């Protein structure tokens, strides 16, 4: 495989970092400040996309920034797998940047400068995770992501926000320090390196027992992936403003979590080692449990964002489940699902935020007839929901299809069952919302005409329409995406 | 042997009495006796330099400082039934016994007392004894080591004294608020310093004349003796420390006899402040001059003062005087700062 040395990944990471300063200096003039955000998002997207042709040509980009300690480098590597996450995050940031403007201004939120600064920083961290070439670099950006999203979660600074944000921090920082760092140290001690290498670095370096322990530590240490019982922080983080929930707690942060899980499974342990020790199967069961349990909990939530949050927990475990099946189709499905879930879930969160910005409604039971007030919004919501349920013509269908194929390939039909049951549960918690929105009458006294596309509200509605279109489009461009996925699969499973 | 053991027993008794007496003034007096006995023991053990120092510092200055403090605080030790109890005596006893037991275990492998073949006497000490006089021109080997071989230690020692003096100045020399406090420990309150009585009384107190006359007569002799001890440090026991303390004693005696104000008139505060650091600076300068002449710090022999013998003699004398100056200054400072009367 050809390796190209290039500083592009660093620019991609740093662009939003520098934007932070510009945003800080433009604190007095909101328009300039938001322009910086948008410009940074566009440039970032441009840089990421400029790397795509190189990757599609089967090359990788590497850059070793500096050696911190003997054996610990800050190094970046862009391969096909990184691109899945990088493209998702950088594309959706553009959309979210506009959405933020609408949401924050129509709600007249305080501390907006801090908000935009932290937002830009968290994108830096997300891309840092995507491009990291070793566990150490990844760990740095993982911690950075936790720290810079903390001010976003605590944004409202109410007593409730402070309490929940602190729990957010304890969960994410705590698990990462206690479990993940231990696992990294152990990996370094046994393998002598922290480099991500397709096929893994741990095989044959330590006894089975030790490897199992390291595995458990890693899985427990990556709370961002939301595998039960380390999912508690995710619903709590919904106390943050909706754009944060949308981009970070449906896309960047949690996707970073599953991204890292996949990366560690495939590039630290390696498919063969996992299969040999039966770890993949074990993880698949944990993920399955999370999928079902989260869906059941989601059913009981009346708060729209809470329901979406539990849905996220479940959907993340799809990714984990798929990869832990360890077959080519399933791995491809899991990569694909990163994109699919991101675009679908961000649409749903955008809708929740748009509804709140326009009508101050948070609960599902209040949404009767809202389809008449905000038809466009609710159509987009329907698109997102159908995609996640797995209806054909929407992106979600593709991943579920491949996932099921993968399960059959692996010979574990039980997981096909899990997928079917959970799809039914998905339908059970999404469809009633759609039904209530379109077919139930508005509560008395409410005016059916809300200006959906006027003032700042327009900024919230247009982005969600765009993402809805993306969800549909993904279904049709899936074959091209699969090309990228095949590149990854080929590298980790040795061409099969 | 019997004499030794008797002295040691006496010392132990003194120590126990000193810590058990409720009257602190008496305890301090017993402590003085303890120190003096200790000096005697050391003299018997062929350590005249140390004995002299202990007599001057341990029994002399320390006692004076203790009494000064008692006169400004209170004489009695009182039991308080307080809620806060930091440390029970029984736990203390336990720790102390463990501590003693550990030390005693160590004695098992020690060479016998007085054994001339102990490692302590055969390694470093041999060269000091054999070559000390030739290499330093100082017949008193203690001085030879003190000023020459281990000159930096001695410099450090001067700095320690200086540090303590500065520390006491930092603590006690302020004009900030002070509270008037009452004593309620059953002893008669001592409202002003013992040493300060002289300028407080207007009429002639019984015995005062004697005190003043004795002081007048003896002070010059004390001072000359102090200078002698300093200057002769290299040939006989004694030196800067002992001599410095003796010089300080003369001032302390003057203060006791004529009062703080009279003393301050003769020897103003700024003068002692200057004295304090002068000695240390002279010692440091002595070392630095050696560097300027191409040697190491405190390498006296590089100085162009004639033959090595004379160079060493002169350098040792300078160093002894430097030590003496600082020690004298600091001891006076310590005394005056602790013994001065509280402002009302």
């Amino acid at each position, binding site marked *: 495989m050809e390796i190209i040395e290039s500083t592009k990944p660093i620019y991609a990471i740093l662009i939003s970092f520098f934007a932070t300063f510009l945003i800080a200096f433009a604190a007095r003039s909101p328009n300039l400040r938001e322009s910086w955000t948008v410009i940074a998002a566009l440039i970032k997207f441009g840089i990421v996309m400029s790397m795509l042709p190189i990757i599609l040509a089967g090359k990788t980009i590497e850059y070793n920034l500096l050696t911190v300690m003997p054996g610990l480098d800050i190094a970046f590597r862009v391969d096909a797998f990184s691109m899945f996450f990088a493209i998702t995050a950088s594309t959706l940031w553009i959309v979210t940047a506009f959405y933020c403007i609408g949401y924050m201004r129509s709600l007249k939120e305080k501390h907006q400068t801090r908000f935009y600064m932290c937002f830009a920083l968290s994108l830096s961290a997300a891309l840092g995770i995507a491009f990291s070439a070793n566990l150490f670099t990844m760990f740095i950006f993982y911690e950075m992501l936790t720290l810079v999203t903390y001010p976003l979660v605590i944004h409202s600074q109410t007593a409730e926000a402070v309490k929940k944000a602190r729990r957010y921090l304890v969960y994410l920082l705590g698990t990462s*320090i206690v479990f993940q760092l231990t696992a990294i140290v152990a990996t370094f001690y046994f393998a002598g390196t922290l480099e991500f290498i397709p096929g893994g670095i741990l095989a044959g370096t330590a006894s089975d027992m030790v490897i199992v322990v390291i595995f458990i530590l890693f899985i427990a240490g990556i709370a961002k992936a939301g595998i039960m019982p380390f999912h508690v922080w995710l619903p709590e983080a919904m106390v943050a403003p909706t754009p944060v929930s949308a981009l970070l707690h449906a896309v960047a942060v949690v996707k970073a979590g599953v991204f890292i899980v996949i990366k560690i499974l495939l590039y630290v342990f390696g498919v063969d080692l996992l299969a040999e020790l039966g770890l993949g199967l074990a993880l698949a069961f944990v993920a399955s449990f999370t999928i079902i349990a989260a869906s059941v909990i989601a059913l009981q939530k009346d708060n729209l964002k809470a329901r979406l949050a539990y849905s996220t927990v479940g959907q993340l475990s799809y990714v984990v489940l798929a990869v832990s099946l360890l077959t080519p189709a399933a791995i491809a499905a899991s990569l694909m699902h990163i994109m699919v879930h991101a675009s679908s879930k961000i649409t749903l969160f955008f809708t929740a935020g748009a509804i709140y910005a326009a009508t101050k409604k948070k609960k599902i039971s209040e949404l009767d007839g809202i389809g008449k007030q905000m038809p466009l919004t609710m159509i987009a919501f329907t698109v997102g929901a159908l995609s996640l349920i797995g209806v054909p013509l929407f992106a979600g269908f593709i991943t579920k299809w491949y996932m099921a194929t993968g399960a059959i390939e692996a010979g574990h039909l039980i997981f096909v069952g899990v997928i079917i049951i959970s799809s039914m549960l998905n339908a059970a918690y999404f469809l009633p919302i759609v039904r209530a929105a379109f077919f139930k009458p508005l509560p008395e006294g409410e005016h059916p005409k809300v200006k959906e596309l006027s003032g700042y509200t327009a900024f919230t509605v247009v982005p969600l329409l765009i993402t809805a279109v993306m969800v549909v489009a993904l279904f049709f461009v899936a074959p091209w995406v699969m090309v990228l996925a095949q590149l990854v699969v080929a590298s980790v499973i040795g061409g099969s | 042997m019997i004499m030794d053991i008797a002295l040691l027993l006496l010392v132990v008794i003194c120590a126990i009495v000193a810590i058990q007496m409720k009257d602190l003034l008496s305890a301090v007096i017993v402590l003085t006796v303890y120190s003096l006995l200790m000096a005697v023991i050391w003299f018997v053990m062929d350590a005249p330099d140390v004995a002299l120092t202990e007599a001057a510092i341990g029994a002399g200055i320390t006692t004076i400082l203790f009494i000064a403090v008692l006169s400004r605080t209170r004489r009695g030790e009182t039991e308080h039934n307080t809620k806060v109890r930091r440390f029970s005596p029984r736990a203390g006893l336990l720790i102390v016994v463990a501590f003693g037991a550990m030390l005693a275990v160590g004695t098992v492998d020690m060479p016998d007392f007085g054994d001339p073949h102990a490692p302590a006497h055969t390694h470093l000490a041999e060269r000091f004894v054999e070559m000390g006089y030739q290499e330093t021109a100082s017949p008193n080997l203690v001085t030879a080591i003190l000023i020459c071989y281990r000159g930096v230690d001695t410099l450090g020692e001067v*700095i320690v004294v200086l540090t303590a003096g500065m*520390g006491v100045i930092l603590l006690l020399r302020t004009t900030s608020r002070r509270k008037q406090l009452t004593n309620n420990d059953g002893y008669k309150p001592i409202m002003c310093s013992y040493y300060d009585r002289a300028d407080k009384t207007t009429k002639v107190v019984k015995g005062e004349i004697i005190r003043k006359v004795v002081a007048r007569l003896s002070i010059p002799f004390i001072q000359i003796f102090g200078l002698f001890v300093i200057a002769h440090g290299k040939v006989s026991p004694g030196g800067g420390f002992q001599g410095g303390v003796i010089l300080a004693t003369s001032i302390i005696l003057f203060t006791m006899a004529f009062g703080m104000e009279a003393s301050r008139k003769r020897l103003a505060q700024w003068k002692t402040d200057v004295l304090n650091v002068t000695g240390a600076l002279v010692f440091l300068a002595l070392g630095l001059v050696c560097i300027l002449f191409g040697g190491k710090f405190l390498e006296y022999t590089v100085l162009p003062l004639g033959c090595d013998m004379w160079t060493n003699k002169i350098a040792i004398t300078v160093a002894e005087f430097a030590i003496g100056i600082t020690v004298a200054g600091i001891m006076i400072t310590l005394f005056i700062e602790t013994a001065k009367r509280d402002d009302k």
Partner: protein
Amino acid sequence: MIANIIENIPGLVVLIVIIAASLIPLVGKSRPVLAWGIAVIAAFLSFIMSLYILNVVMTTGKIRYWFGNWEPPWGIEYVFDPLSAFVLTLVSFVGFIVLVYAKKSLEAEIDPERITYFYALYMLFIGGLMGVVATGDIFNLYVFLEIAAIAGYALIAVGRRREALMASFTYLILGTIAAAFILIGIGYLYMATGTLNIIDLAVILPEIYQSKVVLIAFAFFTVGLSIKIALFPLHNWLPNAYTYAPSVTSIVMAAIATKVGAYVLIRVMFTVFGPEFELTVVHVTEVFLVLSVVAMIIGSVLAIAQTDIKKMLAYSSIAQVGYITLGIALMNVTGLTGSIMHILNHAIMKACLFMVVGAIVYRTGITHIHDFVGLGKKMPYTMAAFTIGALSMIGMPLTVGFVGKWYLTLGSLEAGMWYIIPVILVSSLLAVGYLWRLLDNIYFKQPENASELKTVKAKEAPLAMLIPTCVLALLCIVLGTFAYLPISIAEEAAKVLLRY
């Protein structure tokens, strides 16, 4: 002439500080600012010299400077190996930078008439510590230890509140006990070997490892030094001493006093007695291991319980000392490297944090953490420095705190003691607990009642205080990011100590 002076730098590096200390009462009598000027110049020169020494040691090896040109073991020598050069540089650097900071802080916290002597004692304190680090003679070490100790007691006692006096006295009693133990240890060693020179001792001692005199000497050294570094359960003096001392004293004490104690402990354990002694004769490492672990946990838990920021930082120091002794107890190069790196980390990070506290006290006079609401807005740069220091304490990657912890965890694995790792990490987590509560108050908490806000009049700290604080904060990051350099020194030092 110049060549002469350069040749004598190993001695002058300490002496210049002491010379300055002796000059200060003369020169600064009427004008404290002159005292400050002399102190700053001397400290800076000393720092430059120590850098020079570090450079020479790392390029050409050990330096031995014979005072008076008397060859050791008869004379006293200064010995610089990688460890002592490293710690010396650290001490002189912190000493210098705190001095820059001290001017403003002292004006606010000390009677004007006391300032001159405060500077003199400060210099003696620094000089004493430097002497301890530099010396190669064990009795000389005791003398310099006492210079630093006596100066330290006085520096603590002039705190603003009367509790400072009692804190100082308690410290004096415990410190004197510690010093007496060390003196006993020296006496026993001298009795068994007849020498006082550290290198000479290291040669003679292996022949008489089995002697009970040596054993007891070792016991007394370790107990005495454990008091000096406030190793649990001998830490009682520390919290009050740090809390009630003037800010400047708290900074230097927290940053370098216990670190120098740790240095001496390492020196005694590894150079004087030698690693063989601990491994074959006393098995003291297990004891240290247990005490370190307990210190790391208890210190952090007690820190969580505090509401006074200085006390909180003081208890956290007790936990941090646990890290240092842990690295010593591991008895391998990686662990010891971690220990030395943690000495560096703790010195810089604690100095930074205490400087921030001093700045807060300077502007508002508050130390109670519930009163800190709103400081993030009022003193943004100071608080940014605090945040960085806090991250370094937690051990975030790319701060210097991470480096030490990384090596300690790796060292525990190497020693086969994987069960230490959770303790290290849980202790870090507890640090998150108490620091984050503080950061929440500073940045995010809303004042319940605006009129009760004690930070209304606060504003950014004066530049003379802000710059040193920010320099230290930056160092936390720079040394954590470009950790290669300090690690190479620390690793070299560890190798020398373990005789590889």
